[in-house]
């Protein structure tokens, strides 16, 4: 009796582990199909790359500018102006815009914009039984559909991170100008505090975010079922899982990174 109750209570936990396991299997399959020839996905890769870029660039620019102007820009500038150290905003923006908000917002935008589009697309193909038809024709759906999305999303997310950093810093400049501060101090502290570790860790993190979003969204799209409500529900679950996974991953990576690279903790 107690065992039954326990197993029923643990059912959600078991489901989570099963989902994660299946996604891991899909990741390994994707990696193997990506490196082992033949390589039929070149054209689809370019197409997906452009598709994600065209979808994401506008939401990304608006989102990073708004977030960086509001959260670190105005809040920090308010406190710094009270203690008369507005030029220190540059050093603060290294921490916030490059290390933290850049990757996070890029991941949120890519998950919300490109990930949902991928899930809707693959889910529609699953519902219309196109995926089964592909398999009957001897075309591997993982190699021809998932691998190009996986690679394209990894590259695009890293690329968009650079844009997120640029527009984040532009928002920092806007915040300085709103407080009528000259920009010399901002750039001076920005460039003395920025390290190459900040930049590569930010870009690497974004590459991993792209991989996570691509796998989660492809998996949820390819396992959509249940008619009209099914595709919508798949998109819903895909975006929730990607967001939680990305934020959790970001926390773990930045914990390790900040603890192991002493130059990120130095006073300059």
């Amino acid at each position: 009796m107690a065992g039954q109750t326990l197993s029923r209570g643990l059912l959600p936990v078991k489901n989570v582990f099963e989902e994660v396991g299946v996604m891991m299997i899909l990741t390994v399959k994707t990696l193997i199909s990506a490196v082992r020839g033949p390589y039929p996905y070149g054209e689809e890769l370019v197409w997906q790359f452009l598709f994600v870029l065209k979808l994401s660039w506008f939401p990304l620019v608006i989102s990073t500018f708004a977030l960086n102007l509001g959260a670190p820009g105005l809040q920090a500038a308010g406190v710094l102006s009270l203690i008369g150290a507005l030029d220190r905003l540059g050093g603060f923006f290294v921490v916030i815009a490059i290390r933290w908000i850049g990757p996070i917002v890029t991941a949120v935008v890519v998950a919300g914009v490109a990930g949902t589009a991928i899930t809707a697309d693959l889910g529609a193909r699953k519902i219309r039984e196109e995926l089964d038809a592909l398999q009957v024709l001897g075309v591997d759906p993982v190699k021809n559909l998932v691998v190009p999305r996986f690679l394209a999303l990894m590259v695009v997310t890293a690329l968009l991170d650079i844009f997120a950093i640029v527009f984040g810093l532009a928002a920092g400049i806007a915040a300085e100008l709103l407080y009528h501060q000259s920009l010399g101090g901002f750039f001076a502290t920005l460039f003395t505090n920025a390290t190459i570790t900040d930049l590569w860790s930010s870009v690497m993190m974004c590459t991993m975010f792209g991989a996570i979003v691509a796998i989660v969204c492809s998996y949820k799209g390819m396992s959509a079922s249940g008619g009209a409500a099914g595709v919508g529900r798949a998109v819903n679950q895909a975006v929730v899982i990607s967001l939680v996974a990305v934020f959790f991953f970001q926390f773990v990576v930045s914990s390790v990174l900040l603890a192991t690279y002493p130059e990120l903790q130095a006073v300059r």
Partner: protein
Amino acid sequence: MIGWLDIPRGWLDSFGDIARFGVRVSGLVYSGRVFKFFGEGLRQAGLLIFGSALIIWAFCFILGLQCGLQGAYFNRSIGAPSLAGLFSAYCDLREGLPYAFGYILAAKVGTGIVAEIGAMRISDEIDALEVMGIQPVTFLCATRLLGAWIALPFLYLVGIGIIYAASFLSVVNQVGDVSSGGYLLIFWMYQSPPDLFFSLIKGMVMSTVIVLVGCYYGYTASGGPVGVGTATAKSMVFNIVAVHILGMLGTLVFWGSNPRAPIGG
């Protein structure tokens, strides 16, 4: 293949429609006509609490951990580790929680509403409601807005507690540069009840917009099962940008000219 400017152009196309739809639904709630279906509103509030509360709070917890971590290391780098509470107070209450709430609400609740209502639209259930003499906008959309307004403020307030606990954990227990008493002294010093109130307003405006956008895209879905998926994806795109813009406007309005920090005179 979509063009480079299709996303902004699509928003310009649909922004007026969304605004008109939102005003109509809010009008139905304000005028009290939704109370004809008060039971349905309560049911939607219950669904929100039982279906989404845990995931919302888990997301708040993760963001709180990140706020604490970044704040602790930033303050160590400027040689003032005891001031980590300042960063956490601002990051948690003023900025982090509204954004975390907006992201996860857009992802979980907003797209969920589109999937539900869109599926009803595709299978002609909304037309059936109309034939039966029930106003579908009141029954489906206004009740969801009412349910969100009943349940979400409380979820938000509990989320504040959770994000505070998470920041405490990561600053005091994980990084450990500052004692718990020293952290809490600065942490409570740099916030005030108006901040809590403004933060709540920010979060609620975001969630109202998210629910309305979800209802709009679900209600106007078309094109079979594929159309529901596309509408769900579109609502997420709109919601993400709306959350960021509302967050920025909220900061500008509430803290733009007065940071309300206990420094100086």
